[in-house]
């Protein structure tokens, strides 16, 4: 179809068309030859410049124990591990001043923030300049909304992500360590109580998924755990409260979430999950009573068998003594 349309045009105005094409072709060639060579060495030059610029910063910022003291007396470490930074996603893409433009001046201008919280809020605005999608999702999440409402314990970008470190989120190391990361807050009953939450981390680490993940972290750090980690069920940046109907772990959605890894899961499967509660008479009572049964049965059996063994040895010893005396 397209060819049959083109052929007549070429036939009718062949000369005119070719004459018109000459300057276009020439223009493209000349323009290209001018444009391309500078474009070639530029990234190399830029990379060199960037490396030089970073080296300037790292001349000071590799010294161990460098800290920034905020008016709130909180300390921020400003020592950078150059190897880890260079190997990180940021180390390959941006320079120090991409995120810290004010600090191009030496000495650096005074930090205006007063607390760690203000500092982190300020930093996440920097993250938003590139990571728009993640920041947008995070803003609508339970963490992001809590942050906006002014709850200081709620996390921000840099609470979970270290922009200077190599631990990229797609690495097995990051995946296997995620429960510990969430546990920074979700294992602390004092922090959780303020928000009417339980310290779910403690229960998670002794559940099926938690045990497998812990074993991977300990014995196979190079392989990503196949068991569910926090974010597999709850979501990452877009995490919602479990009571939110839009949450992936809301009672109405949890079976579907289970089936994303257990596609053949039967309809009662979701109750296999003990709601990250330590079994008690009012939380998974069956599990609790089975536990109690063995907590009684094991010492009782061991005690009874041990007693019979001791009695048996005692009788043997007495017989030996008697025999000895008899001789």
């Amino acid at each position, binding site marked *: 179809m397209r060819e049959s349309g083109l052929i007549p045009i070429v036939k009718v105005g062949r000369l005119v068309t070719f004459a018109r094409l000459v300057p276009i072709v020439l223009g493209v060639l000349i323009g290209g030859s001018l444009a391309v060579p500078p474009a070639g060495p530029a990234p190399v030059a830029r990379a060199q410049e960037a490396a030089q610029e970073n080296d300037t910063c790292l001349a000071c910022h590799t010294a161990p124990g460098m800290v920034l003291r905020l008016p709130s007396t909180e300390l921020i470490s400003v020592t950078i591990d150059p190897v880890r930074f260079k190997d990180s996603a940021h180390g390959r893409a941006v320079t120090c001043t991409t995120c810290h433009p004010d600090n191009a001046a030496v000495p650096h201008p005074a930090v205006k923030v007063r607390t760690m919280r203000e500092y982190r809020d300020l930093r996440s605005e920097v993250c938003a300049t590139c990571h728009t999608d993640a920041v947008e999702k995070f803003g609508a999440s339970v963490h992001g909304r809590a942050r906006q409402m002014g709850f200081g314990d709620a996390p921000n970008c840099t609470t979970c992500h270290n922009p200077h470190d190599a631990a990229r989120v797609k690495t097995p190391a990051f995946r296997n360590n995620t429960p510990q990361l969430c546990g920074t807050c979700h294992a602390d009953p004092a922090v959780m109580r303020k928000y009417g939450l339980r310290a779910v981390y403690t229960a998670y680490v002794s*559940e*099926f998924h938690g*045990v*497998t993940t*812990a*074993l*991977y972290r*300990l*014995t*196979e750090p190079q*392989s990503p755990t196949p068991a569910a980690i926090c974010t597999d069920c709850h979501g990452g940046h877009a995490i919602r409260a479990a009571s939110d109907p839009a949450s992936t772990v809301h009672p109405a959605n949890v079976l579907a979430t289970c089936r994303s890894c*257990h596609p*053949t*899961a*039967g*309809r*009662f*499967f*979701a*109750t*296999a*999950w*003990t709601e990250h509660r330590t*079994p008690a008479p009012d939380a*998974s009572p*069956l*599990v609790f009573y*089975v*536990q109690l*049964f*063995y*907590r009684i*049965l*094991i010492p009782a*059996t*061991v005690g009874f*068998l*041990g007693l*019979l*063994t001791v*009695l*048996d*040895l*005692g*009788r*043997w010893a*007495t017989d030996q003594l008697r025999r000895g005396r008899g001789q």
Partner: protein
Amino acid sequence: MSGGHVARFTLAQRIEHFVLIISFNALAFTGLPQKYFQAGWAERIIQLLGGIERVRFIHRTFAVILLAEAAWHIGAVAAARRAGRERGDMNLSFRDVREVIGDIAYLLGLRAEKPAFGRFDYRQKLEYWAVVWGTAVMAITGLIMWFPETLARAFPGVLVPAARVAHGGEALLAILAVIIWHFYNAHFRPDIFPMDPAMWTGSIELERLRHDHRAEYERLAEAGLAGTEERPPS
């Protein structure tokens, strides 16, 4: 009288026991590190075996071997019963309760004589039924954990974490029972140390039978010591 032996275990039963030793130990060795995963020794065992997936694979392989053996055992007992070879020597009855009390009295020095035990005394019966009960519990709870998706088609999912607790508890119970009860009664008892040869040779000395299983000895004596033979332990 001395030197005479009475058949106690058939070759098939001794092989069965040997398979049980292998599978029980392999299951304990690959199971305990999963139960106590936070301990340093557990981590080292898992690393030694090549990671948790391999540990689970080995565990399930030996679980299948044990299940096959359990099926074989049920079949063998049923066949023996049908052929009339099975006299119910392992059956539990009220007599065992009396013998436990009687034995405790004897051990305490309140009685001069041991109760007249049958072919198997209460210790051996207890151990046998503990293995039967334990294998059943371990098989059911293990299969629940192996196929939780299938279970949840018809049964409440909470059986899965309950099965996990029961599997760990029963495992610990079985291991402790073997260490205390079986090791003492079949290995460390001063008169039989280092081991009761019956499970190795398949026969028991007549003299020991008279002492430890008097009722059985008397039954055989009445029947003219049928089934006894003059042969040294092979």
